[in-house]
């Protein structure tokens, strides 16, 4: 946000300059007023000096009048004029007390005034005493005094003018500087404000642009998300149909096995049974055969028996009839016995004594899982034993098949959708269990594997 900081700084400067110009404006007024005041002051001094001169002149004229006429009213005028002089002198002194030159001038004026008045006083006393007036002597005395006096007042005036000039010049200078400051700071302040304005609009434009870009990007993202979601839905749908398909396949497989098993057993099996029957009858007809014939017949009987056993085994493997009739409790041990014989793997079976019947689908699914797991034990694990355990936990039927073989390699076990690469058989087990609302767990280590299937047993019935 460098831009932001800079803009702020510019704005602050602008405001500062505007404040400065405000102050300068005030100062300019101030200085111009000072200038005025000095002028007024000078005028007043001049006026006071004028006043003094006028009063002194008045006193002089009044004394001359008295001297010439001896009339008392002239004396009265003289006296009143003289009485006014000190006040004026005082006033003048007050006005000029701040300037040393003027103070000197005033002091001189003061003494001169006193000198003149004393002279006049003497003259008047003489007149009053009745002496003759020597006008030329008076003139000779007073004229120099008068010119001295005029010089003194002139000095005061001159000094005052000089001071005024200086002061007004200073004031003017200051005034000009103030005005210049006002102008400059105001102008710069305006410039800075303008700059600030430009920076703001630039920033705003940039922001708007960025927002637009963001909005566009958002839209594109939204579109992409929608597309992805649609793709996900399609994927879900196809996963679902895949699952349904595999369930369907499983079910068809099951149906087929059942059919084939039954056919084998009921049809072929019966034929073999009856074949055996005939051979038995043939065998028991003692009188008719030679020894070699009898041996052959007995061999036929054995072959028939073998065939029957094979048919029974195959059909029961395909579809155990007794599963429906007697349930897992009896079907599993029966199957394990056959398996042990066929595969040379020792088996053990543990079951909760109160374990009862379950739904047909559940029992069949568990039975198939048992078959598949034991096939894997036989084919892949190299284990010499397999332990089967069936129990009921929290309303779930739990079937566990554990072996002590070499285990399933880790990378086969840990796949994304669980067990996919372990083969169709495991996937089938998984699907069955899932369809019934249960779950399948396979744990494996180099010392053994355990397959655990748990299925909720809501339709459980007592054994």
């Amino acid at each position: 946000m460098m831009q932001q900081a800079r803009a702020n700084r510019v704005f602050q400067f602008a405001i500062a300059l505007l404040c400065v110009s405000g102050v300068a404006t005030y100062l300019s007024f101030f200085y111009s007023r000072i200038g005025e005041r000095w002028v007024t002051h000078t005028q007043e001094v001049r006026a006071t000096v004028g006043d003094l001169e006028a009063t002194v002149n008045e006193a002089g004229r009044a004394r001359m009048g008295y001297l010439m006429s001896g009339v008392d009213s002239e004396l009265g005028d003289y006296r009143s004029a003289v009485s006014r002089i000190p006040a004026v002198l005082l006033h003048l002194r007050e006005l000029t007390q701040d300037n040393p030159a003027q103070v000197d001038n005033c002091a001189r004026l003061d003494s001169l005034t006193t000198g003149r008045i004393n002279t006049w006083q003497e003259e008047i006393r003489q007149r009053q005493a009745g002496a003759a007036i020597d006008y030329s002597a008076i003139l000779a005395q007073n004229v120099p005094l008068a010119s001295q006096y005029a010089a003194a007042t002139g000095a005061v005036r001159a000094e005052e003018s000089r001071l005024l000039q200086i002061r007004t010049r200073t004031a003017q200078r200051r005034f000009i500087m103030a005005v210049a400051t006002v102008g400059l700071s105001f102008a710069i302040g305006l410039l800075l404000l303008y700059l600030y304005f430009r920076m703001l609009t630039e920033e705003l434009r940039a922001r708007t642009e960025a927002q637009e870009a963001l909005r566009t990007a958002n839209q594109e993202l939204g579109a992409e998300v929608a597309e992805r979601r649609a793709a996900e839905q399609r994927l879900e749908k196809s996963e679902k149909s895949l699952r349904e398909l595999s369930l369907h396949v499983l079910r068809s497989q099951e149906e087929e096995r059942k059919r084939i098993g039954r056919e084998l057993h009921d049809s072929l099996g019966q034929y073999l049974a009856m074949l055996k029957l005939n051979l038995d009858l043939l065998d028991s007809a003692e009188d008719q055969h030679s020894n070699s014939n009898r041996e052959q017949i007995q061999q036929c009987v054995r072959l028939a028996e073998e065939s029957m056993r094979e048919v029974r085994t195959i059909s029961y493997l395909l579809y155990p009839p007794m599963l429906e009739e007697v349930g897992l409790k009896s079907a599993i041990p029966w199957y394990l016995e056959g398996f042990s014989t066929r595969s040379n793997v020792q088996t053990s079976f543990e079951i909760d004594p109160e374990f009862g019947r379950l739904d047909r689908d559940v029992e069949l699914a568990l039975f198939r899982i048992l078959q598949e797991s034991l096939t894997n034990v036989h084919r892949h694990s190299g284990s010499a034993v397999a332990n089967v355990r069936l129990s009921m936990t929290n309303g779930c039927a739990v079937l566990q098949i554990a072996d002590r073989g070499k285990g399933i390699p880790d990378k086969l076990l840990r796949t994304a959708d669980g067990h996919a690469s372990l083969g169709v058989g495991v996937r089938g087990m998984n699907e069955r269990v899932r369809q019934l609302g249960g779950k399948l767990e396979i744990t494996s280590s180099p010392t053994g594997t355990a397959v655990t299937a748990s299925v909720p047993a809501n339709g459980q019935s007592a054994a």
Partner: protein
Amino acid sequence: MLKRLLIADDHEIVLEGIRNLVGRSGRPWLISGEARNGEDAVAMVKFLKPDVAILDITMPQLSGLAAAKQISECSPDCRILIFTMHESGRLGIEARNAGAHGYIVKAQAARDLIRAVDALLEGGTFFGVPDDAAPTKEPDKKPGGLFYVAASFAR
């Protein structure tokens, strides 16, 4: 005295086999009827009143066990022998519960059928164990011909 047998099985080959066995046995037995399903078996028993009914278990319409139950209720004089492919102790118990008096497997037909019928005709029972040959009665062998009448209800 001529004894009447009824046989019920949905496979012709089995019926033929039983006929064969009975004929060769030399017993004075008459196969008075052959049924192809459980319902027919019950009806025939009611109608023909045989002494022994030999029933397969897996039959259409009505299973052998159900038929046995019905027969034992409405024709209690008839002795019932279950003759089946399946070897199962449990089934044997169920057969007994259904009212059957005997249970033998087809794999051992040659060995057990005649003996079982003999035993049942004498009022006893015959629940044969598949692989051992311990009968409960010793049959008498009589020479003779073979008579049978097949009365099958075609369906």
